[in-house]
């Protein structure tokens, strides 16, 4: 299919806005869908058309595929963009969308199914001689988990086979905690993804999370667009991201890109996607998983490469070849993203709901804001806590850091608690300045210091 005329965006918040913008630049009409709780949300008015699809609960609205397909038919949309979260990585949803003769803006349902099973994905990597952390197969019982953990050696990390977003993940150091964590992970994963199977992986202390962006069209062109460092996390969810990473040098960078390309090519991937790795202190990298969707942190890659990932993703789905080749990719400068979330860092990131009573977004040179809220918006418990993303670009990391601190100091959100002050403090910390960050740094060190000093790190 050449050229899409109308895209239905099956999402909300900042990513819905982002996709509508990309469509508008491509001359594609847009249909927004929204729940009762989102009647006043910005994406509803921003799209060319909008239809209400049900109550606030995601299962009855944004995950109600039958309803969304009915809206697509009714409005004459020829494609559905799932954004991230909701059914972005549901092979069953992609299959049903394809089955209706609509374009699913993402990879094929077979590719989603293959890489969505983390054990299958690990086997793909192993077959291609991409290093992995090893670990177990699917576990039958908590006794089997304890046996396996003794063999691997504590601490181990418990992970659901299905799903993402860190749901159910837990690092455990003893059999009692392991039993509790496997039960919880199975329950959470069953609730969220309809599959309660879990497995164990060796836990790497002081590891860094570094991921490689892949773009692949339907004509066999596959390009790696450099890495993103996403080590600053809470609850296995990213908070601050940057590119390039301070964890790796050009040799490792090239090896990681080559490994990511091998995986994408081996599965015949066609869309934007991300291969996630852990990197240890000796710069050895290990395949973690593949995300078969556009990611929250995609803008940092856009800032240094000048390539619009969402536009490319839509064009790939429409059967248009990539607008660039590997030779055209010349990343320059440094980019940082801070996710501004409605959570209280002083209360263990407790979600904060309410009405946005004050909103001042930053601007000026090198600053981009992708926002899903406006003055008067309601932040409810039903959806994730991301309010907006502040992204900056500058010539090098120090300058980008100074620019981000300036931008965050301009940002004011009233009515809910946010992570802004914590992020300002992170960017002022010695660990950040030295580039000595790892996946547990925020929860194990920075947060404690933030709480006791109220702002200064």
């Amino acid at each position, binding site marked *: 299919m050449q050229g899409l005329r109308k895209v239905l965006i099956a999402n909300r918040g900042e990513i819905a806005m982002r996709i509508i913008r990309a469509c508008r630049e491509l001359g594609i009409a847009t249909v927004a869908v929204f729940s009762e709780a989102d009647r006043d949300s910005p994406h509803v008015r921003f799209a060319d058309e909008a239809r209400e699809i049900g109550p606030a609960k995601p299962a009855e609205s944004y995950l109600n595929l039958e309803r969304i397909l009915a809206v697509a038919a009714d409005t004459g949309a020829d494609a559905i963009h799932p954004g991230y979260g909701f059914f972005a990585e549901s092979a069953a949803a992609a299959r049903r969308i394809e089955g209706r003769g609509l374009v699913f803006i993402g990879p094929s349902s077979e590719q989603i199914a293959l890489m969505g099973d983390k054990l299958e994905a690990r086997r793909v990597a192993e077959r291609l001689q991409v290093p992995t952390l090893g670990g177990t197969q699917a576990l039958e019982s908590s006794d089997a988990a304890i046996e396996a953990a003794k063999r691997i050696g504590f601490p181990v990390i418990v992970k659901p086979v299905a799903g993402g977003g860190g749901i159910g993940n837990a690092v455990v150091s003893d059999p009692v905690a392991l039993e509790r964590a496997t039960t919880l992970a199975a329950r959470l994963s069953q609730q969220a993804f309809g599959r309660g199977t879990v497995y164990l992986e060796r836990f790497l202390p002081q590891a860094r999370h570094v991921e490689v962006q892949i773009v692949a069209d339907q004509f066999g062109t596959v390009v790696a667009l450099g890495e993103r460092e996403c080590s600053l996390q809470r609850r296995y969810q990213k908070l601050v991201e940057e590119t390039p990473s301070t964890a790796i040098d050009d040799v490792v960078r090239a090896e990681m890109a080559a490994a990511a390309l091998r995986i994408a090519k081996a599965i015949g991937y066609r869309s934007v996607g991300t291969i996630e790795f852990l990197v240890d202190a000796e710069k050895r990298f290990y395949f973690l998983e593949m995300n078969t969707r556009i990611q929250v942190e995609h803008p940092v890659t856009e800032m240094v490469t000048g390539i619009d990932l969402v536009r490319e993703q839509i064009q790939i789905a429409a059967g248009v070849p990539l607008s660039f080749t590997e030779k055209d990719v010349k990343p320059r400068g440094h980019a940082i993203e801070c996710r501004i979330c*409605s959570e209280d860092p002083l209360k263990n990131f407790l*979600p904060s*709901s309410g009405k946005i009573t004050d909103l001042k977004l930053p601007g000026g040179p090198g600053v981009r804001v992708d926002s899903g809220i406006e003055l008067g918006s309601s932040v409810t*418990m039903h959806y*994730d806590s991301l309010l907006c993303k502040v992204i900056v670009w500058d010539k090098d990391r120090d300058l980008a850091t100074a620019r981000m601190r300036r931008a965050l100091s301009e940002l004011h959100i009233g009515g809910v608690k946010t992570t802004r002050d914590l992020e300002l403090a992170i960017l002022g910390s010695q660990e950040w300045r030295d580039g000595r960050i790892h996946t547990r740094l925020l929860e194990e060190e920075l947060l404690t210091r933030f709480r006791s000093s109220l702002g200064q790190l």
Partner: protein
Amino acid sequence: MSERIEIVAPVAGVVGNIPVAVGDKIAAGDPVIVLQAMKTEFPVEAEQGGRIAEILVSEGQEVEMGAVLARIDPE
């Protein structure tokens, strides 16, 4: 006997899981009710040890911030 202690929802959410039953003995810091909000789970913990006297919510129920979820007889 001293007055019962109320376990209150610190945030609006959905009751995800109730790891205790009436009559259970719990210590300070034990999770009493697990709330789900904004795609995350939050254990609401007992600030003081005691015995679970009442559980006022059920799994899947939506609760407002400040809602009383359970009561504890302190020990």
